[in-house]
């Protein structure tokens, strides 16, 4: 039982489905977020190539999925339990760019105090954007618990959790979907099907007809949407959000997209992705498509897109330099935040560590490259 693919704009930006009634402001906000996402992505790729940061995760190609989904949320009430390939959500909701770069550099001002790898963001404001961990699928039951809490308190908020096609094979997907179904939790499951889990193509990931159908196993309705069509994603997720808010329970949204690059800066996709696939999906670029439609509707003026792009690139350059210039976090941050209150044994270890490096500082050699 495969699902139809919801599409509103075709690959050329022509309207093929009923466009949602959305204010111009919101449309432009989505467009700007997509452009900023790409600019940030490119800036990070560059910083990695020039050895200034250790790692990044290409977001090229998946901007519409992240941004379209994020746009369906209300920051005053909702939560995001994100995938790492979700820069677009950050830009749509206007998370602090400086804090994002602070994370990429792991510097003193990083909210996670340089403890996390790049792209493992964590924000409370303006919308709770749950701290990303590397183990896959673990955020899915978190979102369900977050949503259950809101339901128990009678709040109107919902939780959206995003994850990749590969992540559907994890225990977290299974338990999260099942609990959400049983408890009728107000949660939206966004499966970002970008066709690959590192080098594993979807047909080696699952024998199911698609990802939306997996909802059947949990009594959770599934829908499939063109993940490169920001309007379609926005509509599908908005409907799922509406269901959740109305107390009608969870929805699984499969956004079909493509990872236009390696898994990460450490990955060489030419080892396993047929090159023609990149060419094919380049034609379906989510930003070009949306831009074409916005222009054709007169919502973007001549040259406006270019200005937005330049502005975004300039901002990335500027802010990344600010973050780059900051010192690393103090040694004590190795020991804080393990517990609310520092236990005696950590106090002792902290003193030893600080004393050791203060008295015996030779400088350490920092080698080692991240392979993926």
């Amino acid at each position, binding site marked *: 039982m495969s699902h139809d693919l919801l599409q509103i704009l075709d690959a050329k930006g022509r309207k093929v489905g009923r466009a949602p009634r959305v204010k111009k402001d919101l449309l432009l906000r989505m467009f700007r977020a997509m452009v900023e996402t790409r600019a940030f992505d490119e800036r990070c790729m560059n910083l990695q190539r020039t050895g200034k940061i250790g790692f990044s995760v290409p977001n090229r190609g998946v901007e519409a999925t992240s941004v379209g989904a994020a746009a369906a949320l209300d920051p005053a009430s909702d*939560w995001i*339990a994100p995938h790492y390939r979700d820069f677009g959500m950050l830009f749509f909701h206007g998370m602090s760019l400086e804090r994002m770069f602070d994370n990429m550099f792991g510097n003193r001002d*990083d*909210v*996670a*105090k340089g*403890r*996390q790898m790049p792209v*493992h963001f*964590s*924000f*409370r404001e303006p919308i709770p954007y*749950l*701290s990303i*961990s590397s*183990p896959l699928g*673990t955020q*899915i*039951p*978190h*979102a*369900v*618990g*977050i*949503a*259950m*809490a*809101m339901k*128990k*308190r009678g709040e109107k908020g919902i*939780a959206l959790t995003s994850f990749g096609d590969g992540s559907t094979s994890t*225990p*977290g997907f*299974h*338990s*999260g979907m*099942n*609990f959400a179904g*049983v408890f009728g939790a107000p949660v939206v499951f966004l499966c970002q099907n970008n066709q690959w889990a590192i080098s594993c193509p979807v047909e080696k990931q699952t024998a199911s007809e698609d990802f939306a159908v997996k909802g059947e196993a949990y009594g959770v309705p599934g829908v499939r949407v063109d993940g490169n069509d920001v309007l379609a994603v926005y509509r599908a997720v908005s409907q799922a959000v509406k269901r959740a808010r109305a107390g009608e329970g969870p929805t699984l949204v499969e956004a079909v997209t493509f990872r236009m690059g390696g898994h990460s800066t450490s990955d060489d996709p030419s080892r396993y992705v047929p090159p023609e696939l990149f060419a094919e999906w380049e034609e379906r670029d989510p930003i070009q498509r949306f831009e074409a439609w916005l222009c054709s509707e007169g919502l973007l003026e001549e040259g406006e897109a270019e200005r937005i792009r330049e502005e975004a690139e300039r901002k990335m350059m500027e802010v990344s330099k600010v973050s780059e210039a900051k010192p690393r976090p103090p040694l004590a941050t190795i020991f*804080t*935040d*393990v*517990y*609310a*209150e520092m*236990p*005696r*044994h*950590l106090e002792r270890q902290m003193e030893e560590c600080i004393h050791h490096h203060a008295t015996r500082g030779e400088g350490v050699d920092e080698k080692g490259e991240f392979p993926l």
Partner: protein
Amino acid sequence: MSTTTAKRAGAKARELTLVQAVNDALRTIMREDPSVLVMGEDVGPKGGVFLATEGLTEEFGEERCFDTPLSEDGIVGCGVGLALNGMKPVCEIQFQDFIFPAFDQIVSEAAKMRYRSGGQYTVPMVIRTPYGGGIRGGLYHSQSGEAYFCHTPGLKVVVPSTPRDAKGLLIASILDPDPVIFLEPKALYRSFREEVPEGLYTEPLSTTREVRPGDAAVVFCYGAMVPVCKQAADRVSEARGVEVRVVDLRTLLPLDEDAVLDAARDSGRVVVVHEAPRFCGFGGEISALIAEHAVERMEAPVVRVTGFDTPFPNTLEHYYLPDARRVVDAIEKVLDF
């Protein structure tokens, strides 16, 4: 060291078994704090397989004490989510042996959330679970996994051994801002009763409890080994006319290292006892700590009395579990060194 705040020892007290004290703790804190939830397999109408949650669904409704699908990963994973968003979940894992499907959520998520988010997100939750031998449960209803959790920074690990402590430490754990693994010695669930204060009574985490005073030697233990060690210490003390101290560690992580080291220094003769296998078990940590910090005061090397380095057997479980005689031998060994 303790992060608990509330400690209103009720004037009144009731005689309870350890499992009743757990139930009482849950009921008491649930009446006090509407954000406390109880969840797990069979914790609802059935009241838990050991009846630790008996009557809670009846009193607080299905929204606050509820059965979950059969998934420990889901129980802890959703529990983490609930904790992230203002609730205080108390998750029951039916037997500690079944906690391993949740190991990733515990070790990778609950334990590391505060650290990795720079304190932006925290997980104030309790995972309670019956552990240890004594019910002829074989390989999978008898294990003692405390060392796995103790090797995981970010967790707290609490093991009561009396009804009074079960209540006081459980309420303190629920009030604690960090995730607590609360290991209940199932062998002691109904083995004796004790006066347990009514009301919102807490015992501070990360403190030890003196079970028996003494200056000739000290036995460190926890959970179901406490009465075994007490019995052994009584016997040796009587037989030799000396006094052997017994200390219940109660919180294994963060351990009250100063209390342990002071007690070790007092007599310079230490035995440490647990049910779990020896190799890389908790006893090794005690031995190493003493070597590092108190060696100059030691009169004898630390002796461990533990389960063997095998899976947990069934028919022969009472030959596997440390008994008073093995502890007596160990005490005599450190006394005679």
